[in-house]
């Protein structure tokens, strides 16, 4: 999670933007809930206050969905990406998210994509690819370049490929949504 925020900030930096990434540390043990934050701007970022109203929320561990008030601070018009193989309704959060436009909420099987490319359920990199596709705030190429900087050799390549698959997943989803809306209007 902390690495995801770091990579996101590096990608934004590569795109010529200003970025500030930082973790929120709790008890440092494997499995404990962890949050990390990233601000991206076209101007110098001065503030150091906590992020309480994110524009984009990436949920890596869907088991947290019913433990913590994850969506309490999401800003109006914000985006949500969730790592899961289930749909929003199957996850039991359809009702909570019904006020959000459907093309602002996407479920990505990021852990599966991680296993496929990196032999481990690493959800970070597919989700960052998905972030690029959904928000258009950063370029996929910059996400991939950040991964190649962080992880050298074949691991970097595997991460870059996983990011591309996360990206493609969202593009397919968005195309489907647009097509559904088009048909809905046509009907």
């Amino acid at each position, binding site marked *: 999670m902390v690495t995801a925020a770091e990579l996101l900030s590096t990608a934004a930096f590569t795109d010529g933007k200003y970025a500030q990434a*930082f973790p929120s540390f709790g008890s440092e043990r494997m499995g404990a809930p962890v*949050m990390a934050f990233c601000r991206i701007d076209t101007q110098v970022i001065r503030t150091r206050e906590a992020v309480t109203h994110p524009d984009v929320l990436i949920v890596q561990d869907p088991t947290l969905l019913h433990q913590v008030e994850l969506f309490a601070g999401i800003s109006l018009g914000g985006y949500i990406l969730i790592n899961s193989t289930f749909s929003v309704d199957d996850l039991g959060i359809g009702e909570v998210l019904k006020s959000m436009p459907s093309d602002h909420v996407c479920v990505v099987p990021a852990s599966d994509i991680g296993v496929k490319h990196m032999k481990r359920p690493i959800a970070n990199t597919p989700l960052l690819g998905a972030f690029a596709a959904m928000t258009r705030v950063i370029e996929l190429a910059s996400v991939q370049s950040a991964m190649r900087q962080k992880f050298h050799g074949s691991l970097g390549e595997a991460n870059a490929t996983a990011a591309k698959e996360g990206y493609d997943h969202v593009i397919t989803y968005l195309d489907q949504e647009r097509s559904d809306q088009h048909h809905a209007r046509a009907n």
Partner: protein
Amino acid sequence: MRVQIEGSQAVAEAVVLCRPEVIAAYPISPQTHIVERLSRMVKQGDVGRCQYLNVESEFGALSVLIGASAAGARTYTATTSQGLLFMTEAVYNAAGLGLPIVMTIANRAVGAPINIWNDHSDSMALRDAGWIQLYAETNQEAADLHIQAFRLAEELSCPVMVCMDGYILTHAYEPIDLPDQAGVDAFLPAFSPVQVLDPSDPISIGAMVGPEAFTEVKYLAHRQHLRALTLVPEIAGAFEQQFHRGSGGLYAAYRMTDADTAVIALGSVIGTIKDTVDELRDEGIAAGCLKIGCYRPFPATQLRTALEGVSRVIVVEKDLAVGIGGIVSVDVRMALNGSPIPVHTVIAGLGGRSISTESLKQMVRDARAERLSEPHFLDLNVRVVDEELARRYEQRRAGPLAEQLIRAVNAIGTKVI
């Protein structure tokens, strides 16, 4: 070279550019990333003939550096919180002996209750130990201050603490312009000690001094320390000339020219305060911000001049002197001695509590309406405090305070407050 990098890594890189010869450290959060990186770089042979000593404690770390510095080596360590307090005796000795050691403080709260998050309780506890104290606003400044700190320390033969906010800076990734080696070599001359343990020319350092000369030794140390008030801006100027970037200095003013309310602070919260000042200006409130970059020696005269014309001063400080309130605000009041300008103390950000623009704006509005208590605790959870006070009034064996309050606010380890 401009890179997106974690604050701790940037500081480690900056320290290496200064060609340290002995580094001794004991790991403690949130300082660990700095010393881990340094130990790796030394092991890889990236730091010349530098030796890295993995010591048994913080007391050991600074004691090693006292010896190494007295032998003429350029020395560095980093610590925080309980680690700094554990080395307290050596902290005083390093200053008393006039040894130009540079130490990063990754600012963190001091227990009990144990808390690993940021505030300034640690470095503030040792503000009068004889070290120069510089506080970084950003990671760029943290990196730059280390390069300035070695020059300052060695020119004065006085140790320097570079204080940077734990986690908020040490663990934040942001764009940083890392100086090149040639630039640092041109800016920072080789260490030329004023005293050195040399077997071919034996001396002793550390004599016992009785009442006949102790006052004079201390007086001269004070005089020497105060020279930093001239040197800090000079060195910041030389740094800007070399690297074309302003960093450091005794203080920095932001929108102070026509300000009626000045907010004074140290460290990374200055960034949030600048945003707050801009928003208040949009509301028509003439706020300004004054950053104290060098806290020891204290630039009293300079601050007094910078505060001329304001109607009130609010000191936002990440520390608490139990039994009196503020620490920095007491010094600011001394700087304004005889002046009618009221100084408010605001205790904020203790133990890592986020300081928000919203709360800072309300604080300024309250100060202007003369509604601030003294000292004022920003975002104090009054309900929980009142309930606990009532409970303690009714019950003699009320139990441990920390455990009770955790239950009362239903906090979990990772909750953002």
